[in-house]
Structure formats: structure tokens, C-alpha cells
């Protein structure tokens, strides 16, 4: 007995060295709370928060993308996929800090602490291989996001917060119920273990699929994919723009990472009796279609972006649907580009909101008065549409080429349909993404005096836009990095 404990404790001690980024985040979380006790000014808080994200990101990078290790007796696993997503989540947190710089309502230590908690939850979620860890980290993300979503402390904010909370709680309860059945059938909570695999092969009952679908529902809720998407537009619309940008990226990427692992595990290397490829394809088609079509007639840019983020989840799932290592790589590329373009658009939307432009029609004439931000926004939206010369095009090209490859390997007509409908949806998305630039550049508004275009936010947006263009011309700098990831379940 003692020998066994000794081994376990040694394992934990050994695992800790892999866990430095998460330790850093937890440490900074505590530090932020400690700072809240004193009347600390916002610059200190912001610096502290950003330092936390940077250090954790550096920590992840230091472990490298090609290493693999199972930690804490099968609770989590460090691998390239998880590390890469961790870096992206850190980056999202970092950019959100920058965006929050000028938001008066967010100058509280709690805000940054919650941001830190979401990022920590994201780190844990992408690395989890254990149902309990998934549940806990998902809840960590969710609970912090509920509060963050209402951080404008307005009437609408509280409503968004409530809806998010109710929907999220139900979704996590459903997911938990699914976990309990998977545990009952396999006897293990570690879904990457051999036992789990063997038991599922041995006991191929319909309940497995039912339970797996319930678990999937929890993940779909996290990435705002259909049919678990209805909360997203209301919540996003109500939240402050930096929070919205953050929530539409960080939890989404974390959920995507764990969804990928879970689906691949349930697929049992193709030996599952359930057709997981069809399920993912159905989900993604539904998601893209609902997101795109609902966005068509939106008048509020935030709500439009909420639907856009739903649709983008669908495009991200294309990488999962390919069931190929290449698909995972291209999904990561898409995820990185999505992060950049989403933040680019939100940075500019934030800027325009400050100029009290809050409806799409309000953008009339913005192209004349606020030329540079309008152009930046245009590039961001073009990227989201997936047109050259932006990295959005490259990302869509890659991810669909992975699906195409999968189609050529398997010859399933379903995949062909996904490609076709996905591309058609890209055309549909053109109509709503370009509505803002349409108003900004082609409709003339009231002639306003030339305003100062150069602000800190514009600089941030400009950098992101530049990145989008750069990645179009040289996607190799990112792909080369991603290709190092050797992903095995």
C-alpha cells in the first residue's frame, strides 16, 4: 500500500514540472486576488495579467510541441495539440487584456482574475484525458464566463449572464449524465486508456452512443455549435466587446480541442459501430447553415458577429470531420487564423462602438470619416468570409482540402456534400460579412469632421490585420510550426 502511494506521489511530483504554465496561471490568479485587496491602479493589474499570460505561453513553448507525456496518473496529457491550443488561448487572453485597456468597467482585479481563470480552465480542458478533469475545467471556464458575460453590469448584461448560466448548467448536467453512463459501461474515467477502448469494443450497446452524444452536447455548447448554439447570440450581444471577443475564441478553442480528442476516442479508430464522421458532418453542416443564414438580416454588428462565430465553429469542425492527421493540422491553422481575424474585427468594432456606431446602418459614411479603421475592419471581414488576399482564404482552402483528401481516401459521398454545402455557405456569408463595409464605403452618411484615427486600439487592429495579410503570403511560418505536432490519441 505504502509502496503504491509512494509511486503515486512520485508521479505527481514528476508531473509538476510539465505543469509549470498552469502553475504560473494559478499563481497569477492568486496574485491578482491579493492585489484586489489593495487599491491597485489598473495599469498594475493589466501588466500583471498580461505578464501571467506571457509567462504561461512561454512556459508552454518551452516544453515544445513535439513532446508527449501523461501526467497525474492519466488525468491530463501534454501533447502537441494541447500545447498549441494552450498557446492560442494564452494569446487570446493577452489580446483581450490589451483590448480591455480602455474599458472603464473592467478596471477591477476581479475581471482580470476571472479572465485568468478562464484561461487556466482552457489550459486544463485541452490537456484533459479524464472525464472528471473535463468536467471540472469546463465548469471553471463556464462559471467564470457567466460572470464575465455580464460584466457590463447593465440590464442586458444581467440577462445575457442569466441565459448563459441556465443554458450552460443544463448542458453541463446533460454532459455529466453522459459521463456517468460512459463510466458505468467502461469502468474507467480515463477515455484515452486501453481499458476504455477495450470495454467499448466489448460492450457495443446503443447506450454508448447515447451517452457519447450527451457528452458531445456539452462540448458543442462550449464551442457554440448547433444544436447547442442558441445561447450564443444573446450572450454575446449583451457582453462588453472585449469579453465577447474573448468568449468567442478562448472557450471555443478549448472546447474544440477536447471535442476532437473525445470524438477520436469514441470513434475507436473506425471500429465504432456509430458513424462518427456522419455525426460530425451533420453537426457542422447544421452549424454553418444556421450561423450563416441567421446572420443575414442582423442589424446589430455584435449580433452579426455572434452568428458569425457560430458559423465559424462549423468551419472549425470541418477539420475534425476529416478524421485525418492533416485535418487536425489544418484545423489548428484555421483556429490560429480565426483567433487573429476574430480579434481584428472585434478590435475595430470596439473602436466604432466608442464612436457610438452600434448598428450596421450607423456605419454609413464611416469609410470617409474613419478611413483606416474601416479598411482594417474590411480586411478582417474579408478574412472571415474566406477571400484572398487574407489568411482566412488560406485557412478555408486548407481545411476544405483536408476534407477533400478524406473524401478521396474514403470516397464517401457525404464528405463531398459537406464540401459543396460548406463552399456554398461561404458564398452566403459574403452577403452579411460585407454589409458593414458596404455601408461604410458605399453609403454616404452625415458628413462628419475628420476624426483622429490613430488610437492604441487601431494599432492593435493594424497589427492583427497585418498578420492576416502576412499569413496569406507566407502561411509557411505557421504551418511549419504546426506540422511539428505529432498528434496521436
Amino acid at each position: 500500500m505504502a509502496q503504491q502511494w509512494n509511486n503515486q506521489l512520485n508521479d505527481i511530483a514528476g508531473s509538476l514540472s510539465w505543469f509549470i504554465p498552469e502553475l504560473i496561471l494559478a499563481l497569477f490568479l492568486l496574485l491578482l486576488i491579493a492585489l484586489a485587496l489593495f487599491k491597485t491602479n489598473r495599469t498594475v493589474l493589466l501588466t500583471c495579467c498580461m505578464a501571467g499570460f506571457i509567462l504561461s505561453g512561454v512556459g508552454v513553448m518551452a516544453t515544445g510541441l513535439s513532446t508527449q507525456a501523461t501526467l497525474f496518473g492519466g488525468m491530463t496529457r501534454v501533447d502537441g495539440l494541447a500545447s498549441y491550443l494552450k498557446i492560442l488561448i494564452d494569446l487570446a487572453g493577452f489580446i483581450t487584456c490589451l483590448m480591455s485597456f480602455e474599458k472603464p468597467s473592467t478596471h477591477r482585479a476581479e475581471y482580470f482574475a476571472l479572465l485568468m481563470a478562464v484561461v487556466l480552465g482552457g489550459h486544463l480542458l485541452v490537456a484533459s484525458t479524464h472525464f472528471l478533469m473535463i468536467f471540472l475545467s469546463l465548469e471553471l471556464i463556464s462559471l467564470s464566463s457567466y460572470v464575465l458575460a455580464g460584466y457590463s453590469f447593465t440590464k442586458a448584461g444581467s440577462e445575457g449572464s442569466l441565459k448563459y448560466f441556465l443554458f450552460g448548467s443544463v448542458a453541463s448536467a446533460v454532459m455529466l449524465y453522459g459521463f456517468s453512463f460512459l463510466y458505468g459501461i467502461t469502468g474507467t474515467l480515463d477515455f484515452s486508456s486501453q481499458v476504455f477502448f477495450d470495454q467499448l469494443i466489448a460492450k457495443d450497446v446503443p447506450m454508448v452512443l447515447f451517452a457519447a452524444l450527451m457528452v458531445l452536447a456539452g462540448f458543442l455548447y462550449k464551442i457554440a455549435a448547433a444544436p447547442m448554439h442558441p445561447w450564443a447570440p444573446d450572450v454575446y450581444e449583451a457582453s462588453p466587446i472585449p469579453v465577447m471577443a474573448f468568449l468567442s475564441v478562448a472557450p471555443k478553442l478549448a472546447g474544440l480541442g477536447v471535442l476532437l480528442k473525445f470524438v477520436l476516442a469514441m470513434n475507436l479508430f473506425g471500429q465504432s459501430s456509430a458513424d462518427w464522421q456522419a455525426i460530425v458532418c451533420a453537426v457542422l453542416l447544421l452549424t454553418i447553415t444556421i450561423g450563416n443564414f441567421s446572420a443575414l438580416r442582423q442589424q446589430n454588428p455584435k449580433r452579426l458577429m455572434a452568428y458569425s462565430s457560430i458559423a465559424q465553429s462549423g468551419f472549425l469542425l470541418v477539420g475534425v470531420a476529416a478524421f485525418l492527421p492533416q485535418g487536425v493540422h489544418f484545423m489548428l491553422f484555421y483556429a490560429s487564423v480565426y483567433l487573429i481575424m476574430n480579434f481584428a474585427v472585434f478590435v475595430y468594432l470596439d473602436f466604432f462602438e466608442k464612436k457610438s456606431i452600434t448598428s450596421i446602418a450607423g456605419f454609413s459614411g464611416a469609410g470617409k470619416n474613419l478611413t483606416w479603421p474601416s479598411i482594417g475592419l474590411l480586411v478582417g471581414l474579408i478574412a472571415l468570409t474566406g477571400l484572398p488576399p487574407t489568411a482566412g482564404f488560406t485557412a478555408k482552402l486548407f481545411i476544405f482540402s483536408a476534407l477533400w483528401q478524406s473524401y478521396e481516401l474514403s470516397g464517401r459521398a457525404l464528405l463531398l456534400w459537406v464540401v459543396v454545402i460548406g463552399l456554398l455557405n461561404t458564398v452566403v456569408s459574403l452577403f452579411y460579412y460585407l454589409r458593414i463595409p458596404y455601408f461604410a464605403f458605399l453609403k454616404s452618411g452625415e458628413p462628419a469632421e475628420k476624426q483622429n484615427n490613430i488610437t492604441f486600439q487601431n494599432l492593435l487592429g493594424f497589427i492583427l490585420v497585418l498578420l492576416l495579410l502576412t499569413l496569406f503570403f507566407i502561411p509557411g511560418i505557421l504551418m511549419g510550426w504546426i506540422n511539428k505536432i505529432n498528434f496521436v490519441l
Partner: protein
Amino acid sequence: MMPSLQHLLYLAAFLFCTGLAVVMVKRNTIMMLLGIELMLNASNLNLVAFNRLYPASLDGQMFALFVIIVAVCEAAVGLAIVLRVYQHYQTSVPDEISELKG
């Protein structure tokens, strides 16, 4: 002799579905919270029941304990949110809290 495991599972399924129905039916946000608690308890019951199948490890019971912790957190945050909404809307009827839509 102990009752079959299945009976516990049936009870859990019943609690789960009832909880879900409560969440959907009640015109009161706090009642919705009660429904969610029911759903969580259903899962817990499942976990504890299944633990009898795999007595060697106590995974199920451990999980159940953690679920209780999470439920506490959810209840705390949830109630805070409900109270806030109540301040703004002067109601806790979810149907009436629907300014965000479309």
C-alpha cells in the same frame, strides 16, 4: 439480496427527465435552479450506482463528490446572477427576461 442496479438507473433517469422538465416548465428562475440540481443528482446517483460494478476503484464516488462541489459553486454563482436580474427586471420569470432576441 440487494435490488438490481437497473432500478437505481431507472430512478436516476426519472430524476433526470423530471429535472429537465422542471427546467423547461417553471416560470421562475429559482425553480429552474432546482431542476438543474435534480439533474445533477441524477448523474450522481448513476455514478454511485455504477461504482458498485467497479468496487476496486472508487472513481464513481470520487466523481460524485466533485460534482457536489461543483453544484455548490454553480448554485452560488447562479443565485448571484438571479438576484442581479431580479434587480433589473423586478421579476424572475424567464419568459419576461427576453429583451435579447432575433
